């Protein structure tokens, strides 16, 4: 328990999956923990009801593109990223959408929970691109296994997740905690057709329960993973917050941390947070964990300037906020000549990873191709009406298109470029006077080389599926996977945190989440962030 001189043993900033996991581990080890969250608590039923009442029902990426908003609250002290909160100043818009609520962004994630491949940790030494990790896959493997168990991952054992149709890869110390979801008709039919072109189907591991898991019922295929799983079958960070609170952790919602203070010896002494009424409060602790995801975490470090730390906290390397990555992607719409029936089961499951790893990564990035298992009925309908299709012809058209129109999307690995960065805006502030994030993002030739390769795959897919390509979007689609902005490395001169995710500059400040990742791979990063977070928890339990 904390001694009287501190408010808590550990203060955690951010209540998402990373903060929740660490809070749970620490609370279970009888440490006193306070978790701060900028946004409010939300109830599932309220989000579901808001979604049901919304005239436009789209997945999160489309909702943002079309300005449809989100069923999650946007509050003056915690503005939604769906609005104009993020300031774009670079050549490419980094239209990410994270959530500022208790439980964090996993509330609306599709719940892909991948492991990276061993080679993803050695990008520089193998392919001369980006950076190497200071730790190897083997070192992280036990934490991947624990993270999969904690988050409740369902997956298919024995798949070659490197996409080559070979032996099971990467190596695993445990089977998937739950067996994989049964593929729907569409997934089976597509797999069958694309296999003829040498494309190896892979069903992605994900956070949807396939049997009762803890308090989660099995996935019932509501096809609504984002914006919200209506029955809590899909993992989200609020579940670990729930567990942490049952073990004694304290969660302060609507509490926006705006300053981290360090003593001259480098030890963090306190954090300051603001309530919606702008009242200011201070908390002290032995150890601090920053887990506010890849935009807010660096923004807070950069805002925390002082005479001793004029460039902000943990920023002696000048790398805080830099190396911003994503899985910047492209997509295409096709119309098949047979009914495929998208919309049955989860919103995503089938992926192709033929170009996940290989010597080609010297020349172009690793990428993943996925099919979106959603049916945008309202867009299909408005498209037809715009063409003047009405009456029974309209019904017919909706039926046809909803059964046959498919959206394919590619996620590319991006590289940690120092010019791609997050900074606190100098000109724009939110309602409680805090600077909003300013984002500079660009895409190098390396990415474009990948795009050219993926477009060849698209052509090939259309041929194998006997489908017509209706449209292709190469407009740098954001994939909501924020990485790199508090990058990990052994050298304090060019990285922010060390191999334990401890900041080089402050021995009692850790950074949890995907922002520490030195390479992005082409797969969704949440599980990697969770594994790293459990590793942090082990270190902090021993030290505090």
């Amino acid at each position: 328990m904390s001694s009287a001189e501190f408010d808590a043993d550990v203060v955690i900033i951010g209540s998402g999956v990373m903060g929740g996991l660490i809070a749970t581990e620490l609370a279970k080890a009888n440490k006193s923990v306070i978790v701060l969250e900028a946004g409010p608590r939300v109830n599932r039923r309220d989000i579901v009801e808001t979604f049901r009442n919304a005239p436009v029902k789209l997945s999160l990426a489309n909702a943002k593109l079309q300005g449809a908003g989100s069923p999650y609250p946007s509050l003056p002290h915690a503005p939604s990223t769906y609005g104009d909160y993020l300031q774009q100043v670079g050549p490419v818009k980094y239209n990410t959408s994270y959530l500022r609520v208790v439980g964090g962004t996993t509330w609306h994630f599709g719940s892909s929970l991948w492991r990276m491949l061993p080679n993803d940790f050695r990008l520089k030494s193998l392919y001369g691109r980006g950076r190497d990790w200071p730790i190897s896959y083997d070192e992280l493997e036990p934490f991947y296994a624990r993270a999969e168990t904690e988050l409740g991952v369902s997956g298919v054992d024995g798949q070659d997740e490197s996409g080559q149709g070979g032996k099971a890869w990467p190596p695993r110390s445990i089977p998937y905690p739950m067996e994989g979801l049964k593929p729907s008709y569409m997934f089976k039919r597509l797999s069958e057709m694309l296999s003829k072109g040498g494309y190896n189907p892979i069903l992605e591991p994900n956070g949807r329960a396939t049997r009762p898991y803890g308090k989660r019922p099995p996935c019932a295929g509501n096809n609504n993973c984002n914006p919200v799983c209506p029955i809590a079958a899909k993992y989200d960070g609020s579940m670990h917050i729930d567990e942490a609170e049952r073990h004694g952790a304290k969660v302060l919602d609507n509490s926006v941390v705006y300053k981290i203070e360090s003593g001259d010896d480098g030890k963090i002494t306190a954090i300051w947070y603001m309530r919606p009424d702008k009242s200011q409060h201070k908390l002290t602790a032995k150890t601090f964990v920053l887990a506010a995801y890849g935009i807010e975490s660096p923004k807070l470090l950069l805002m925390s300037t002082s005479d001793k730390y004029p460039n902000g906290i943990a920023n002696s390397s000048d790398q805080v906020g830099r190396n911003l990555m994503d899985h910047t992607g492209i997509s295409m719409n096709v119309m098949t000549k047979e009914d495929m029936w998208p919309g049955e089961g989860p919103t995503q499951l089938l992926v192709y990873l033929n170009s996940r790893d290989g010597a080609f990564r010297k020349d172009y990035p690793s990428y993943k191709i996925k099919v979106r298992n959603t049916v945008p009925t309202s867009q299909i309908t408005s498209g037809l009406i715009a063409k003047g299709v009405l009456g029974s012809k309209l019904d017919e058209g909706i039926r046809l298109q909803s059964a046959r129109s498919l959206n394919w999307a590619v996620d590319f690995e991006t590289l940690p470029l120092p010019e791609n960065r997050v900074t606190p805006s100098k000109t724009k502030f939110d309602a409680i006077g805090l600077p909003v994030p300013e984002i500079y993002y660009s895409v190098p030739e390396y990415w474009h080389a990948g795009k050219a390769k993926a477009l060849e795959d698209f052509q090939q897919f259309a041929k194998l599926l006997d489908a017509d390509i209706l449209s292709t979007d190469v407009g740098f689609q954001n994939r909501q996977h924020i990485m790199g902005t508090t990058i990990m490395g052994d050298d304090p001169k060019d990285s922010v945190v060390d191999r334990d995710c401890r900041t080089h500059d402050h021995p009692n400040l850790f950074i949890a989440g995907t922002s520490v990742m030195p390479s992005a791979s082409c797969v969704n990063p949440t599980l990697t962030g969770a594994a790293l977070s459990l590793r942090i928890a082990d270190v902090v339990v021993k030290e505090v």
Partner: protein
Amino acid sequence: MQSPTIELVPRNVLKGRGTVRAVAAFLTLMLCAVSAAQAEPLGADASPGKGVAVAADCVACHTAPGGKPYAGGYGLSSPMGVIYSTNITPSKTAGIGGYSQEDFARAVRDGVAGDGSHLYPAMPYTSYAKMTDGDIAALYDYFMHEVQPVDATTPKTTLAFPFNVRASMIGWNALFHSAERFKADASKSAEVNRGDYLVNALAHCDTCHTPRNLLMGADNGRALSGGSLGGWYAPNITSDKVSGIGAWSTDELVAYLRTGHAEGKAQAAGPMAEAVENSLQHLDDTDLKAIAAYLLQTRPVSSGETKARHEFGQASANELTLRGSKPEDPGFHIFSGTCANCHQPNGQGNSQYPSLFHNTATARADNLVAAIVFGVHREVDGVAIDMPAFGPEALFTDRLNDQQIADVSNYVLSQFGNSALKVSSADVAQTRAGGPPSPLVTLAKFTIPAIVLVCLLIALGLWLIVRRQRKVA
């Protein structure tokens, strides 16, 4: 040595799903329901004794969640405190390894432990009393030779006064316990007799489904006509066409017992779900049909209903008429955000989730509220049926408070079920607390008068019995 019974200890906290199985009180329906109990399927080569053990569902009460089978230590909460079951493995030190077959028979059928102390009827010996000598011998054989001995002791028991007076059981037994073994009724078929034996002896259905009198004895004048247990209600299963199961077909009854689900009728939840999971699903069809045959020929007992409990309700059109019009009924919003995802906005369910109308769960407020508070969990043929709990065990993002559960219950009752019923937040609070208080516990609050009254009643009972026996003699 500990006696093979379930005993009371004055504790109040019970973790995990066990609270679902809150038991009303001392001397009431000591319904043991252990979700973690590992009932193995009965293979074709199973010994007769194993068959008896599964039909009698010993494993449910005598196994702690995650514990070794029959090693006891499972805690059941009651208004008196937590009840711990004992170790009935053949361990010489911690279990019943030292029991002779006679000791064993006496414990199971007469409620007297090896050391001569009286058991509390948490152990359903009033039903097991009817077990045949053959089944007792087979069961003894099973426990001695097939069950793995576990030397771990279970929590020791001392009861809060006045319930710690074990000798009071002599009086209670004189009033409510019959040592008579099962006798087949020659005027009935072999099937009905087998069903009678299962319902009233081995599977001890009567333990929960027969109402209790003021002193918690079975009210056999209204046998199988329904009783409260914890927050749940074990309904009338007599052959009455309205109040009971008289309108059910044999196939429906067998399907219900086998899977916990009868289409258009009912699903097993709470303690019944555990009876299905641990015991009934493993019985063979002949036995399940025998239970159905027996129930369908029982003396009908009306509990005053005018409509069978599976006949209520219809689909709702509210989603179409109210969406977008800002309806004020808070129950509509909770239903839409919480229940409609699975049961569908019109309440008709789908292939995975039951309809809310033509469903006994929405004909009674108590079982509806209990299902919402505690959820529904049962595993049949390795497939889990899982409705999350929305009470205190729920994730904070999904939890409902008493008023919210009352609101949504009233919405469901009015739309899909018995619209004459109303639920208040106090009703929900009572379900959370383990159901209506037992009369005996209420009496115990007035400790001294209660003891005097109980003693007087017992004495009176003994006197009556003695007098009657003399007359007979």
